[in-house]
């Protein structure tokens, strides 16, 4: 059992690095075509193929992770956030391969791979220990529900990727009117958000590598459903230096950081979710590190990121991107319906005696579904193509990510993955 788990965790590392190499190959394919001595088309094909092979090798390692962990844990690894995000990464690569071979588009990988890399890295933020299944999760329907839903969401992710390339491809940097400036702003803003996500990963892994630790004792006062006041004292641990300490708390221990020995601020009282202080502190750190990274990039390339990326996209046909984005979403939609709604309802009926209970996660799955059905209606019946449809695909993916992760972190409910210590 332990051997399997060891193989599994080694395979993740292999997969992660292969994905990174694959991304580098793709980046060379996209960015280097104008500097290479050979024909741009041949250059793209050559490096695109190298990227594809590396991605395939990475995916094979990722599958080894999945099945080895399955063998080691005795149940399919989709039952906590770590396992779930890993499964999402695997599914995204599968969706990428499907779309890549359907459209034979050599450069999609240049954007699909970084997204997968971010997801895999993000998964590693969460505790990766194998947990025994709580009774409710021990069901064949759980497996069907999660795997099918994740596959649908993976196609949405590929649709998002193509939409993002389309946005970067068609943003017009020569326009100076209001609409043109707005288009530029939002294209850049999207990239900034992505850099902030990377900033989050840098901050978390950086301080984790440095072994940073701070601890607080927090007193919380809640009122239960019967009106009784409950006072609780709990210990909150931080892995990032506390810019914001938990509300109503005192420091137990704190490693100094850059001369900072005391928390600078206190989390406002209205942020009162589980571990609100720690989460807020992490958000603040992500923004700081992300903006620093962004500033550094701007200093190096001396122009907006979107503008720097655009020339590399010259050879890509916007109509193709539009079609790819739409098709990926269309392929994902029935899978998502089946996995995230139908199988979920069947499971809920068996496990919780009702197929629908307006649990936050259920509601957000419905919101995702409603959003993509609006997308399809706007596209098919009202002729929203190109840039408008691309922005919808981007917003849709934001909703997907909120449903997958945001709900778990911000809103508690049945899907809080109980049993995670």
């Amino acid at each position, binding site marked *: *059992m332990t051997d399997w*788990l060891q193989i599994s965790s080694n395979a993740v590392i292999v997969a992660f690095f292969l994905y990174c190499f694959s991304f580098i190959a793709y980046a060379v394919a996209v960015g280097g075509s104008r500097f290479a001595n050979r024909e741009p088309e041949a250059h793209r094909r050559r490096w695109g193929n190298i990227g594809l092979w590396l991605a395939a090798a990475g995916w094979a390692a990722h599958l080894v992770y999945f099945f080895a962990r399955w063998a080691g844990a005795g149940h399919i690894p989709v039952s906590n956030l770590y396992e779930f995000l890993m499964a999402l990464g695997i599914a995204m690569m599968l969706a990428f391969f499907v779309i890549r071979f359907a459209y034979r588009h050599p450069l999609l990988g240049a954007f699909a791979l970084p997204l997968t890399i971010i997801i895999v890295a993000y998964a590693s933020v969460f505790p990766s220990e194998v947990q*025994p299944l709580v009774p409710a999760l021990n069901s064949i329907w759980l497996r069907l529900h999660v795997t099918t839903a994740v596959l649908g969401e993976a196609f949405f992710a590929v649709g998002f990727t193509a939409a993002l390339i389309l946005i970067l491809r068609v943003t017009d940097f020569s326009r100076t009117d209001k609409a043109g400036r707005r288009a530029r702003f939002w294209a850049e803003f999207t990239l900034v958000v992505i850099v902030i996500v990377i900033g989050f990963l840098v901050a978390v892994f950086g301080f984790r590598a440095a072994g940073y630790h701070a601890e607080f004792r927090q007193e919380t006062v809640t009122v239960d459903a019967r009106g009784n006041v409950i006072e609780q004292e709990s210990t909150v641990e931080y892995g990032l230096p506390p810019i914001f300490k938990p509300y109503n708390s005192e420091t137990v221990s704190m490693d100094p950081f850059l001369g900072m020995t005391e928390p600078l601020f206190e989390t406002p009282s209205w942020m009162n979710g589980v571990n609100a202080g720690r989460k807020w502190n992490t958000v603040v750190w992500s923004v700081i590190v992300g903006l620093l990274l962004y500033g550094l990039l701007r200093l190096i390339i001396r122009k907006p990121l979107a503008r720097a990326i655009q020339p590399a996209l010259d050879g890509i046909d916007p109509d193709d991107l539009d079609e790819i984005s739409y098709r990926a979403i269309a392929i994902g939609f029935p899978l998502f319906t089946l996995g995230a709604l139908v199988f979920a309802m069947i499971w809920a009926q068996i496990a919780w005696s009702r197929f629908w209970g307006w649990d936050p996660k259920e*509601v957000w799955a419905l919101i995702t579904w*409603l959003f993509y059905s*609006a997308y399809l209606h706007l596209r098919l019946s*009202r002729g929203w193509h190109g840039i408008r449809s691309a922005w919808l695909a981007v917003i849709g993916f934001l909703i997907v990510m909120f449903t997958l992760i945001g709900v778990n972190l911000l809103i508690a409910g049945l899907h809080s993955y109980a049993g995670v210590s």
Partner: protein
Amino acid sequence: MIRNTKCECGHQNPVGTVLCEACGKPLDEELAASDSVLEMRYDGMARRSQKPHPNPVDRVWNFFSSVRVAVWLIVITLAAAALGTVFPQESAFVNLTDPAAYYRENYGTIGAVYHALGLSRTFESWWFITLMVMIGASLVICSLDRVLPLYRALTRQQVRKHLQFITRQQVVYVGPIQGDAEAWTARFAEILSRKRYKVRTDGNALLAEKNRFSRWGPYVIHIGLIVFLLAVLMRGVIPGWYMDEYVGLDDGEIEQIPRTGYFVKSLGFRIDFYSDDELPEHLKGQLRVKQFTTKAVLYECVAYCDDATREPELKEVAAHDIRVNSPLSYRGLRLYQYDFAEAPRLISVRPTLVDKRTGQSYGPFELPMRHPPLTYSVGPFTLELRDSFPEFGLDENGEPVTLSREPNAPAFVFVIKGPGLPEEGVPYLYFPREADRQRFGQDRINGAAAEMFDIRVMSMEDVEFSTYTSYLNVRVDRGMPYVWTGAAITMIGLVMGIYWNHRRIWLRIDDGVLSLGAHTNKNRFGLRAEVAAALAKAGIEVDAKMLDNRRKES
């Protein structure tokens, strides 16, 4: 203004028609004069919602038949649902006595506003249900408004189309051909048949079509959703379709399921924990719950069900180990493992009667906490049960009352009769639990009787108790088959409509010039590639991308 809707081909079209029903020529003069790609929605047919001079019914119809309205309804529902997840809904709590206070105290002013706006009951609110009903209306009317014209258009297609209709499709090829036009058309028909197209020819004109069924996908989806929504609505409306009750059972206890003729008995509740070799290294030695099980037997009452004076006659109808993810199911009635409480409770005791005057003991006798018999004979004595209190307490007048029906602090009033006792007997209050005996002062209450008798349990072997109370959720949901049917229909429609696409190819040859147009509702890529491949087989080499009509414009 009354537009002339008669086409130059002689066909009389209804008002609102965009493309002639017969030959496909754009009817609108402005549209006919341009050369933009034609909008092929519903093949340009007139729809009911485009009727001139609408009356009020038409106006309602027109409102709900608009996709724009449908999208707005979806977006509003989506936003409302999102608001409903900001704070927990009231329905998430079992015992919320003062919701307003709860939201104010836990979430501050925002919480109070949230509650005051009714957002804490979003999903039961009249406006949310109204939104659902409106979406339902939109589903029906949008579908009817479009499916009938589309059906008519697709079942009576004419092979020979107007040249403008062909050359203004998404995918177009125009070029010269060699040889006889009819022979070429026949050969091309053969090529397309091999690609599984259904081909019809009319001299030197051709219409090839495949996967028409995928056009019905959206309507099948909408039918499925309607069935689903109606099923959900019905279960709230039709009496007896929906029931949601809870039953708490101690081990060995039998309870009637509220509002039914069924009784359920627990043969025991059990918690299983993961064994050490099932747990990963870092969790070994910890208690991790693997499964909750209630061994349950379901009985149906067959006689004396409503007769308070007699015990109902029960017949066993089903038995099942109810677990999480494995309910007991019998004729639409389902019993789910819902919760449990660790509340040790007496099931029965076997006390002994001690005659203090002689020092002799009699018994023991069996005394169950629930449904105790009315008389007991113990040695020479007879005990008559006058009263029993499952949870003994005193009211404001100091009179004994029972606080609940659960045996939390059971007490029994016996009248002891027998040799050397007055004819009317001696009353005696008995608390089986030692703690209650002390708390309420059994001997003090019994007074003189306590001098004569003692009733007590001699050893723990004479006590049977239940460690847990298992809570079962009992459900009847007769709408479920329809809910699942609706979901299945929706899935079939989705697969039909999305994983297949309807493709049509028209061509005609005029004076040695081939004009070919092709249309699909989805995946132009695939259609272009297919047309290019077919043309290549017929000897015309053309890059698939060059077939894109919009590309040529720009």
